[in-house]
Every structure is written in C-alpha cells, then in structure tokens.
C-alpha cells in the first residue's frame, strides 16, 4: 500500500483521490453518503475574507454531458469557516483538509493565509481561476499576476500551497511554470471553463463534467512534463477509467468534481478499484 500514498511537500495523502473544491461543500454535507475517512483529501468550497452571497438564480444549467454553474463563490466567510465549519469537519474525519481560498485582491489572499497559519490543515489551494466573479479578471490568465500572487502568499505561510489554474489560457505551461517558480507546491488542473448559457438572459458560468475531460487531460499532460512539482488532475472524472487516464497523463493525484452530484459514491468506487490494482 506504500505506493498508493502520495506526498505533496508536507501533505501526506493515504491515496491519490480527493474531492474537488465547490462540489463537496464543507465536507460535512456528504457525511451520510460518503465514508470521509476513505478519501485522500477533502478540498473545501472556496473561502473568502467576507461572506459572499453569490450570484442570482439560475445558478445551475444541466447538459447531457456535464453542467454549467454560476454559483459566484457563495460561502460563509473566513471567520465562520475557521470557527465553525473547519472544527465540525475535523470532528468527524482525520482525512487531510485542503482549504480552497479566493479573493478580490492580493491582500485578501494574504489575510486568509495568515489566519489559516494557526490552523492544522492539510494544505491551501489558491483558487485564482474562478470564472464566476463578474467584473474581475482571472488572475491565472496572466503568468505575471500568477507569479506575483503566489510569491507574495508563499512568504506568508509554511502551509503546503496548491494553485488551481484556469484552462482558458493561450499556453498553460507558461502559467504553470510561473506558479512553480513563485513557490507553489503543486498545480491543480483544471478549474471549470468560462462559458455562457441562456436562461431568458445570457448568463456567464463555468463548464465542467465529462465534456471538459479531454481539455483537462491535455493540460495535465503538457504541464506534468514541464514542472517538477506534482500535478493534481481533475475535469470530468466519472469513473476509474477516467482516473487512470489522468494518472497516465502525468497526474500524481486526481480530484472528483461534479460526479459527486451525479453519484456521491464515485469517489469511493475509484479508491476501491485503485486499491485492488495496486
């Protein structure tokens, strides 16, 4: 079973399968359906300094091959997360918790990181790629901005830092290299793809599910060949076969995203299959 475990700097995963940010709430929501102790890690919903209300309805748009979400980072905010949600999750599982964080400015990222420094968590995932915040540029669409943000945050924390990138860029390797150079300990690929759907009026959202799998696979493959840090692959993983494709592309770990909605048992089924073959 030794081979089964994965290390991302200080973060030790008993298996390389986690749940992706935004699809698993604060973890506790799924406790009746998923044995949380079996997961490699739990990545939380993105936390911001202040509570966020999120976007107007509609927020969900279903496609036969995936879905579009326009949640807009609705979350309880940093304080309530640290005081309530994090202890609640820690009480029910020993599985490492990766806290996804987001901000409108660099100083907001710094503020959250500094607050999390006193908390025992598995890692921090920097969400610099959310497609759903109106009027705000996606940080990870610029190699320079990506470097600046990670470099600043890196100096403020000793937590393991994972950076989640947007697939909507000209050259993903350039951005990933920049993240590595700035001190990121791993790269998460990919966040949902920025798209538009019509529901009376046009609505911006993020596309995810099986329809983005091959975009994700290509990016994981490209990035894994150019950086030395681990790549965590995600995007439309619905079963063990999909998971294996990501490992073959070069991912050291994988995350299950909106398959949690379709079938919450997916992530456990993948872990059990991988154990059998290990």
């Amino acid at each position, binding site marked *: 079973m030794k081979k089964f475990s994965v290390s991302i700097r200080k973060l030790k995963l008993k298996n390389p399968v986690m749940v992706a940010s*935004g*699809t*698993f*709430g604060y973890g506790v*929501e*799924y406790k*009746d*359906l998923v044995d949380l102790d079996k997961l490699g890690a739990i990545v939380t*919903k993105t936390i911001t300094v*202040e*509570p966020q*209300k*999120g976007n107007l*309805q*509609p*927020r*969900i*748009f*279903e*496609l*036969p*091959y*995936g*879905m579009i*979400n326009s*949640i807009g980072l*609705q979350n*309880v*905010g940093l304080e309530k997360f640290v005081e309530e949600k994090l202890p609640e999750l820690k009480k029910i599982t020993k599985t490492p918790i990766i806290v996804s964080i987001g901000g409108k400015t660099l100083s907001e990222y710094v503020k959250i990181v500094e607050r999390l420094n006193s908390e025992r968590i598995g890692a921090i995932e920097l969400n610099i790629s959310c497609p759903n915040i109106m009027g705000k540029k996606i940080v990870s669409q610029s190699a320079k901005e990506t470097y600046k943000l990670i470099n600043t945050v890196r100096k403020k924390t000793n937590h393991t830092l994972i950076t989640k990138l947007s697939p909507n860029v000209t050259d993903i390797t350039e951005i990933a290299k920049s993240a590595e150079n700035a001190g990121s300990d791993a790269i998460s690929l990919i966040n949902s793809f920025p798209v538009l759907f019509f529901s009376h009026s046009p609505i911006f959202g993020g596309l995810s*599910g*099986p329809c983005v799998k091959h975009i994700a696979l290509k990016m994981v493959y490209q990035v894994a060949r150019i950086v030395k840090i681990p790549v965590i692959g995600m995007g439309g993983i619905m079963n063990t076969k999909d998971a294996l494709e990501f490992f073959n592309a070069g991912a050291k770990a994988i995350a299950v995203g*909106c398959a*949690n*909605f*379709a*079938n*919450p*048992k997916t992530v456990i089924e993948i872990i059990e299959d991988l154990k059998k073959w290990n």
Partner: protein
Amino acid sequence: MFQIDAKIVSNKKISEKYFLITFLGDKIARESLPGQFIMVKVDNEKTFLRRPFSICSTGGKTFSILFKVVGIGTEILSKKKTGDVLNIIGPLGTDYLVSRASCLVPIFVAGGTGVASLLFLASKIKSPQKPMAFLGFKTKSEILFEPEFKKLGCEVIVSTEDGSYGKKGLITDIFKKFLLPTFYSLLPVVYACGPKKMLKEVAEICKSKKLKCYVSLEERMACGVGACMGCVIKTIENEKLKIKDDFGYKRVCKDGPVFDAEKIIWK
C-alpha cells in the same frame, strides 16, 4: 439520508401527463416525512444530474413520487417499468412538521404536482378540525387525488383554469374568496405547494390576513444535500452574516424545501 438502489414496484399513469411511481426501499420509506424529497438518477446517458421529487406517500417498505412529464428526465422516468432499478438519495430537506400541522386548523393549497407532498401531510396529521384542501389544475384531465384527500377527511375544493371541472379559475382566487373573517378568526395555518407564482400569491393572501403560511419550494438542483449552493432562494434572513443588506440566500435542498412564507423574498 441514504443512497440506495430501489426497485420499481409500479409506474402508473394516473392522469394526463402525470405518473405515480412506487419504489421498494424500507430505509427511505421508514424515515421520510411529509415535505421531504428524494434525488433520482433517471439514467446515465441523456441526463447528467439527478432529479428532485417530493415524496407523495410511504407504506411499509415502499415510497411513491408523483411526476409530470415536462422534460427529458421525466420522459425517461415515465417509461420505466416494474422491476427496473434506479439509484435514489433520500429522504432530503426539511418537512412540514406534522406536529405543528396537527394542532390547528390546516388548509392545504396545491397546484399541479404540488398535491403530492400535501397528500402525504394530510395522511399524517391528526387535526381537531376538518382540514380544507384547495386543489388547482389546468383542466379536468389533469385532476389528481381529489378522492384521496376526501378519504383522509379533508373538505376538498377543486378548481380548473378552463372551468372544465369544479370551480373555474386559479385556485389562489378561490382560496382568497373563501377566507372570510368568520373563518380566518379560527387562525388556520396554510400549507402550500405548487408553482412559484402560485406560492407567491398564497403568501401574499396569508400575509394580508395575518395567517401563518408554510410553502414548499422548488429550484434547479445539482447535489440535493446542501453542498453546491445551486438551488438558493432569496430570504430575509442571512444567518448572522455580517452583510449590511437585508437578504441572504438559503438552500432550497437543505434549509428547505419547506419555508415559513414570511421569510421568502418573492420579487
């Protein structure tokens, strides 16, 4: 909350476009409360997400849902046969609170498939007064559960929009006319389930008469368990969030589907 593979006991067409499907699953049957719902994976090819349905009744080891064919998911579901197995998560969400409904004079206002959760409630309450049931439909061929509500001791008033059966007009108008001072001085509690437009109207009527009203809402959902924040509705509460404006988003799947009508911002 359970995730089970449930075998279909029966799938009956009970009215124009409406189906009643009964599943075998003792855990869900045992724990379901009126107002709660289940998430059904109807197939793995043409639909990606699960579909939410109110629980309509339970009996021993079985539970039933009512649905109208409105899209691809319900179309597929309507073709399922006895013996087919579907993956189901449930029971989910808040309930009407049978104990609360049993103490006072209950009034049910239902539109279309909204009759499902209210029939379940009617079957569980023990009220000192005869409950009233206002059931609204588009036309005679779509009428559901009139005899069932009567059998449970309710005084039933049916309306159709085209006047082909019962009273003619929207059920909200019939309900409004019925609420004379002599009756609402008895302080009835109103339970409503149906289209959002209807619920908004019922909520406004109740507010003007100072009657307590509980509504069961519907929204597009992804997870059904409170994780994705997809199905939110605007409410006047905001969970002590330090935001200055006067609204907050609540999850229909977890904080609802049953809400105190006063808390909803209908717009």
